[in-house]
């Protein structure tokens, strides 16, 4: 039901989800941060955010992601968040939670009331986590703040990025998440910085690390799967549908998409602190700027968004040519593809790595064989990807 609605919003170009990068300021200093900290411009004012939120409501937007940088570092975060709550948005707050304690935590709960707070976990020990955040004490403070946030009634989720530094702690991180009672999602790849700087990729996990992640996730998924009797009971219950993991615009929301590969520019946009509008947080083609034009006009008339919508159709067509299994394993992202090699239709190394890692997990007997030509020259298009 939910996924069908999301699909329809893609197909009908109905703006449904908006991600606001409120500021690039942050009280952590993560070595692999993807934000373009050198980007300059005039930050949106509080009045402009209020106007934007009114406009988003008029346009029918329901999902609103408040992120950064560290969104709580925006001096008027509470005012913006409160206005968003009053506007009836389902708010996802993506924060490192470093400052989310005491009075501020209580104020966020009362005034912003987010549907979920997504926090960052970068290791299972202080040594590993703090090495990535480059803030001593950040691990212990995160654990303390998480306990406080739970007691205040926040719904929590933890996000992590797999790196060469924490890939030996995957099982420990999941064990920690289980102890805390907070779901954990680990992204298997590091992204380049939004200005094109590829130095964060130096921290990319190894192929073995990605395989281990997929293996552990697969095992946990199997262990958590309800029994056939349980599934029948759920089906009989009918009615409301859980959305705890569905309030995003991720590709994983939708199992089968008839025409468009994702909702980038079709049901979602991302907006940076200076008012630049992008099809997606990952696909950094500026489609317009809110200092010059209202979002509704950008949404309806931007040639960039029109092209992106067409490209998402083309991605589906090409992935269909590879077969459903490969497409599912690849979790292809045209934004990441464009970032990696300039071509949103080209298979990029991380996508190939995912396919190889999935295959290794699903067929452990051939684990040691080179399945995909990772490291081969060039970036073949999706339709021509060898072995993919």
């Amino acid at each position: 039901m939910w996924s069908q609605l999301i699909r329809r919003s893609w197909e009908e170009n109905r703006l449904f989800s908006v991600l606001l990068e409120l500021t690039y300021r942050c009280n952590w200093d993560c070595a692999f941060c993807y934000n373009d900290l050198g980007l300059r411009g005039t930050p949106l004012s509080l009045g402009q955010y209020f106007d934007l939120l009114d406009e988003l409501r008029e346009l029918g937007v329901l999902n609103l992601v408040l992120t950064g940088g560290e969104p709580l570092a925006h001096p008027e975060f509470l005012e913006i968040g409160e206005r968003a709550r009053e506007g009836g948005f389902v708010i996802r707050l993506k924060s490192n939670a470093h400052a989310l304690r005491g009075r501020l935590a209580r104020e966020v709960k009362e005034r912003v009331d987010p549907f979920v707070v997504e926090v960052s976990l970068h290791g299972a020990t202080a040594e590993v986590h703090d090495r990535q955040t480059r803030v001593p004490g950040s691990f212990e403070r995160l654990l303390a703040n998480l306990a406080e946030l739970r007691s205040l009634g926040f719904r929590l989720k933890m996000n992590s990025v797999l790196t060469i530094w924490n890939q030996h702690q995957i099982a420990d991180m999941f064990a920690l998440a289980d102890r805390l009672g907070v779901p954990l999602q680990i992204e298997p790849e590091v992204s380049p910085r939004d200005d094109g700087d590829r130095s964060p990729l130096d921290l990319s996990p190894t192929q073995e690390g990605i395989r281990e992640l997929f293996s552990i996730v697969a095992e946990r998924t199997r262990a958590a799967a309800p029994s056939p009797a349980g599934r029948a009971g759920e089906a009989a219950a009918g009615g409301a549908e859980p959305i705890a993991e569905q309030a995003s615009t991720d590709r994983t929301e939708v199992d089968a998409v008839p025409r468009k590969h994702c909702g980038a520019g079709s049901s979602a946009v991302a907006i940076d602190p200076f008012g630049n509008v992008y099809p997606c947080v990952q696909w950094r083609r500026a489609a317009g700027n809110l200092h010059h034009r209202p979002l509704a006009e950008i949404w309806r008339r931007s040639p960039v968004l029109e092209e992106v919508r067409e490209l998402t159709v083309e991605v589906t067509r090409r992935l269909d040519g590879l077969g459903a299994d490969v497409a599912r394993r690849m979790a292809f992202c045209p934004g990441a593809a464009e970032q990696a090699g300039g071509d949103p239709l080209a298979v990029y190394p991380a996508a190939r790595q995912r396919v190889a890692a999935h295959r290794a997990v699903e067929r452990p007997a051939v684990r040691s064989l080179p399945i995909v030509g990772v490291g081969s020259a060039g970036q073949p298009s999706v339709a021509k990807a060898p072995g993919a």
Partner: protein
Amino acid sequence: MNQDQSTHGSSTAEASTAAHPRLGADVRYRRLAGETVVVRQQAGEVLVLDEIGGRILEWVDRGVMQGRGLGHLIASLQQEFDVSSQQLEADVREFLHQLQDAGVLEPRREARRGDVEEPPGAPQGGER
């Protein structure tokens, strides 16, 4: 369907309560392509209402029923449906009960002396 609210019978007193409910404090909703997506934040659930259901929910949220009564809503709907007003009223009351059972609506507390009545049509953004 979540049953965390008490179920409702058909007594006059209960029907009266159901006729003047308000949106649950944790509920968010939007119209989307003729349907209405309703999110119950605390339960982490989503429901989808059809065109008419969405309009009724919006009337409740905007305080239209509190200001003008259920009769106004019934009269408005009767212009579109070829059914008796009695049948329409029964259907609407049943729908409101369902929304309360689902935790989307909650009973509006009784007005006390000195309380300021909301004007008809006033949005209740602060209550959501």
